[in-house]
Structure formats: structure tokens, C-alpha cells
């Protein structure tokens, strides 16, 4: 019979495991306290606006996921831009978008001595430690598309400012409607932060005297669900027979609304505008259901990111507010608060230019 000593040994093993585990974690003795991850990364370096862009810079793009088609467009444009200033760009990344999967890539990019890492973060904090390490080794860090905690990067390239998106949506629709008539908003979910921020700016824009003949009658929510958005559009047009225009600042919503309108008696009578992707909306632009819609151009985002990283790595900027640099053919940009750079107004897509875009 071996089980008795075996059991005793096993129990000892388990106890040892426990003790070690507790010993490893049980050092220090505080509870939760604040950690400073709020401000952007600080550098002691001084910016030299006149410095030329360095030659042979190595830039690495780290998307959320290597097969994300939207981010691939951004990265490819960034890599092409790097070629313009004599640098070398590449895209590496994980095949899944989990919180931790980008971390091993950051480490290897540090070992490969890249000059800059451009990252669309899956988790704003899980990538923080290694990014801070990278910056310690003088590798510049630029976030794009999806920000990290501000302390873990020098710059964040934002596709568009919330205020600009909100106001421009109203401005575009107003021009199409000659500044008069009832309008409605088809949003995503009721608690989507970005949507609600945009809608707040839309309402603020509408309160200006220029829009006194326009009236927002209702905001409905399609929950980023194609069917629900389709039905909400249907309901909206039934409930408000005098409705002249709909703003759908959601790519799912605008496509569903366009699908409903294109097959109904409202075609040509109701103006639909909002945020959508060219590939989704091409059909409706060509058949006249939708005259125009907008979204940022991912290629410009990548292009700007590449130049911003190069400007950082060449010492033209350090990431402090107010610094200026030239982003090739896009012109001059200024670093905003918290190291944020805004790409600019959204691109408007219509019959004339839609075939130039593929995303």
C-alpha cells in the first residue's frame, strides 16, 4: 500500500505550492492607491523644429489584429509614406485581438531597435509596461485609431475631433436641405459614448440661428444592428410624414437606412447623410439614394502617423502641446492637448470620388 505516504507527500507539495504563492505575492502591504497613468509621456528633450527628417528611420506598425482590413489600409499608407522620406516601414502583429497579444510584439520591436512603434491598442493598459520600456530606450511611441493610456505613448493620432464630426454632419445635411425641414437622427446604441458626444454637438449646432427653419424631431437607436436600424428607419418615416432628412452617424445604421429608402416610396424625397464606408455605400450613391456621406480616410491617418513618428524620431517635436511639424502632402499639423493630433475634417464621399476608395 503506497497511498498513505504518497498522500502525505502530495499534501506537502500542495502546502509548499500555497506557501510559495503567498510568499511571492505577499510583499509590501498596501491596498489600492492611485497610479499616475493620466498625463502623456514626458521627455526632457527639447524640440528642434528646424531639424531635417532623419534618413533610414525604421517604423513598425502594430495593428489591433494583423487581419483587420481597416487597419491594414492605415498601415499600408503609413509604410508608403515612410518610403517618401527615406525610411522603412513594416507591419507586424498578432492574429487575435486579445488584451495581451500585442505585448510580445512590442518587446521584439524594442530588440530590433526600431525608431518608432505605431500602435492601435487592444487594451489601453496591458501594453503600457512594454511601451514605457520602449520609450526608455529612446524608441518613439505613437498611438493611432485606438489610444493607449496617455502616459504610455508620446502622440495619439485621432481620426477626427468629436466636435468637428458632430457639427459637420448637421452642416452637410443643412446644405442639402436648403436649411429647412424636419430631421431625425438614427444612432447606434443609447449609451455609445462617441455617438452621444457627436449628437450633443449636432444639437448645439442646430441651436444656431442659421438652422431656425430646421427641427430635430426624434433620435432613434438601431443598436448597430442591421435589422433594428432598418426597422427604426421604417418607423421614423411612418411616424413623421413631413421628415426631410436623416443623419445616421453609424456605418451599420446608414447602410440599413439606405437599403430601406432605396426600395420605398421615400426614395428621392428624404435626404440621408451620416458616417459610412465607401464599399458599403457605393451602390446607394450610384443609384441616387444617397448623395453624399462622410468618414475619415484611413489612408490619410496612416500617412499622418508615419510623418508624426518621423518628426518625433528626428527631434522636430517631442509631443508637447503647440509643437508644429510638416506631414508631407497633408501640410502642417500642431500637437494638441495630451499629445493628441487630429487628422482633420472627415472626408466627404460622393458620386465623383467614391470609386477612388476601397475600404
Amino acid at each position, binding site marked *: 500500500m503506497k497511498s498513505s505516504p504518497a498522500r502525505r507527500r502530495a499534501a506537502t507539495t500542495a502546502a509548499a505550492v500555497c506557501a510559495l*504563492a*503567498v510568499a*511571492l505575492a505577499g510583499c509590501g502591504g498596501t491596498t489600492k492607491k492611485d497610479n499616475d497613468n493620466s498625463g502623456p509621456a514626458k521627455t526632457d528633450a527639447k524640440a528642434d523644429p528646424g531639424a531635417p527628417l532623419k534618413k533610414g528611420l525604421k517604423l513598425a506598425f502594430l495593428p489591433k489584429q494583423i487581419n483587420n482590413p481597416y487597419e491594414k489600409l492605415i498601415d499600408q499608407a503609413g509604410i508608403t509614406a515612410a518610403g517618401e522620406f527615406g525610411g522603412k516601414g513594416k507591419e507586424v502583429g498578432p492574429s487575435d485581438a486579445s*488584451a495581451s497579444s500585442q505585448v*510580445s510584439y512590442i*518587446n*521584439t520591436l524594442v*530588440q530590433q531597435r526600431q525608431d518608432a512603434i505605431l500602435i492601435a491598442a487592444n487594451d489601453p493598459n496591458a501594453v503600457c509596461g512594454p511601451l514605457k520600456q520602449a520609450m526608455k530606450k529612446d524608441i518613439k511611441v505613437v498611438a493611432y485609431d485606438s489610444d493607449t493610456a496617455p502616459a504610455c505613448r508620446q502622440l495619439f493620432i485621432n481620426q477626427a475631433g468629436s466636435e468637428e464630426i458632430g457639427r459637420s454632419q448637421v452642416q452637410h445635411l443643412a446644405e442639402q436641405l436648403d436649411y429647412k425641414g424636419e430631421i431625425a437622427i438614427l444612432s447606434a446604441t443609447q449609451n455609445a459614448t462617441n455617438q452621444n458626444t457627436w449628437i450633443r454637438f449636432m444639437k448645439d449646432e442646430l441651436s444656431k440661428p442659421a438652422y431656425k427653419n430646421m427641427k430635430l424631431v426624434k433620435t432613434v437607436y438601431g443598436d448597430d444592428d442591421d435589422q433594428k436600424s432598418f426597422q427604426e428607419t421604417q418607423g421614423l418615416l411612418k411616424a413623421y410624414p413631413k421628415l426631410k432628412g436623416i443623419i445616421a452617424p453609424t456605418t451599420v445604421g446608414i447602410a440599413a437606412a439606405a437599403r430601406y429608402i432605396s426600395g420605398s416610396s421615400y426614395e428621392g424625397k428624404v435626404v440621408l447623410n451620416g458616417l459610412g464606408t465607401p464599399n458599403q455605400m457605393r451602390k446607394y450613391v450610384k443609384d441616387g439614394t444617397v448623395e453624399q456621406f462622410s468618414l475619415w480616410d484611413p489612408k490619410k491617418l496612416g500617412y499622418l502617423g508615419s510623418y508624426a513618428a518621423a518628426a518625433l524620431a528626428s527631434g522636430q517635436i517631442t509631443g508637447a502641446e503647440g509643437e508644429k511639424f510638416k506631414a508631407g502632402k497633408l501640410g502642417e499639423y500642431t500637437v494638441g492637448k495630451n499629445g493628441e493630433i487630429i487628422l482633420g475634417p472627415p472626408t466627404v464621399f460622393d458620386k465623383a470620388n467614391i470609386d477612388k476608395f476601397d475600404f
Partner: protein
Amino acid sequence: MKLRWDTAVGVLLVAVFLTGLGTTDGFASRDNLAFAFNDIAEVALMALPMTLLVVAGQVDLSVASMLGLGSALTGQLWDAGWAFETIVPIVLLVGVVGGLINGWLVTRVGLPSLAVTIGTLALYRGLASVVLGTGAITDFPETYAKWAVDTTTVPGTFLTYPVVLFIVLAAIAAVVLHATGLGRSLFAIGAQEDAAYFAGLRVKRVKLLLFVVSGLISAFAGVVFTLRYGSARADNGQGFEMLVIASVLLGGVDFDGGKGTLFGAVAGVLLIGVLKNLLTLNDVANEVQVIVTGLLLVASVLTPRLITTVSAWRHRRAAASTS
């Protein structure tokens, strides 16, 4: 002559390591080595009890979900203002309870461990989501984080603290598996459970103990993971169970039970870790990495059988020619 697959994996590991030293800039740096090994710390920790389980003909698919539950609990309790010294024992206790549930369902209800732990894989991950939702808790201070991060190493070495813990536990596991009665009983149970039972081994008790240790270590791996990334999430470590099992099988532990060495399993884990690091450093695409790992795994399962078949065939031919 019989090929020892675990030795072959050990040799392969050394070969890959030397290739890295010779060909790849940055591979040999202290930072990279510290990182490469720390990066697989949780998988390596969970592979230890998994080795013992597989030798005994069992499997625990719920390890990564238990890691997620441990991570979610750590985050939520920390956020609620608990002291870390209290949180860790609680998380470990939850790991023990999770392991008891697995073990109880296997030994008392008599269900196969594969079916039980497929169920608890979903259950524990679900509980993790209940505990923490889809959010993340992130503000773990340096005091604790430093014990798990890649940058804190044991002075003078490239070994991080999770890796040191792994070495200690691996040594204990090796002794238990290869030099104790308990270890021998694991092989006996894995090879022929009924025979082991009739030989007087307390099969159920041993199996229960293995699941408890597996749950305990997985929950602790959740704490390590949380501190290492500074981010507690319910979906942390998703899919790690496959990596853990793959490492153990790659190390030559027989999925049918009864055969394997701890040395092989450790070599398997390290091989997957070093290979991943080396391929990433050389910009090999993620898809290719997955294929390489997959091929290695197929080879590890196939080669020993192939060798047996070939030698049996040779033996028969030799016998035929002499007759």
C-alpha cells in the same frame, strides 16, 4: 533502439536556442531572454500539474478559464479596496474549490475529465465575466507589479520571479512524478486504471488531488498574469488551455496516459516559448508561427508511433529472412 522523444525535444530546444544566439540580433540580450521566458510564465506554471494529469490519463481544459477567473477576482477585490495579502489567499481558495468541482465530477460522478472540464471551461469563464464584466481594472501599483513584470529579474540573472517560481515548482513536480510512490501511482493509473485500483492504489483520491493542484496553480497564474500586464480582465488568457496541452504533448507526454517525463514537458514549454520569440524577432508572420507549432505538435505525436511501426516492420522482415 528506441527513440526518446523527450530527449529529442530537449536537443531541439538547445538547437533553436543556439540558432537564435548565432543568427538573431537582440536574441541574446538579457532583456529579451528575460522577456521570452517570462512571456510564457503562466502557460509554463499550468503545464506542471497538466503533465501529472495527462500522465494519469486525465486532462484539465478549464485551466485558462480558471486563470481568467483568478484575474477577474484579483481585479475586482483590488478595486474594492482589499489588501493584496488577503486577495491572493482568496483567489487561491477559489482555485482549490474549482479544482475540487472538477475532481469531484470526475471521481464521484464518474464523468470523463474531458467532458467535465469542457463544461467548467465555459463555467469558470462565465463566472469571470460575472465578476468583472467586459471592463478592465488596471491601477495595480509598482509594489506588486514588480514581482511579475519582465524588467524585474533576480539580481545578476535574466530570470524573472515568475520564472524562478516555475523552476522551483518544476523541481518539486519532477521529484513527485519520478521519485515518489505518488508519481508511480500516476503512471499506473494512466496505463491501466482498473489494474491500479485492484493493486490497491487510491485512484480517486489521487485524481482529486491532481485537479485541486491544477485549479490552485491556474488561479495563481491568474494573479501573475494580472500583475504582469497590469490589467485584470475576464477574458485574460483565453485559449491558453490549448497552449498548455500542446506544450505537454510536444514534450512527449502520451495523451493516452501512462507515459511521459516532466523533463520532456518542460522542454516542450520552453521550445514553444523560445521558438515564438525567435520567429517574432525575425518578423515571421503570426499565421506561419501557428503552422510551425502545429507541425511540431503533429510530429511529436506521430514520430514515436512511426518509429515503433518501422522497427516492428524491420523486426518482422528480419525474422522472415532468417526463417
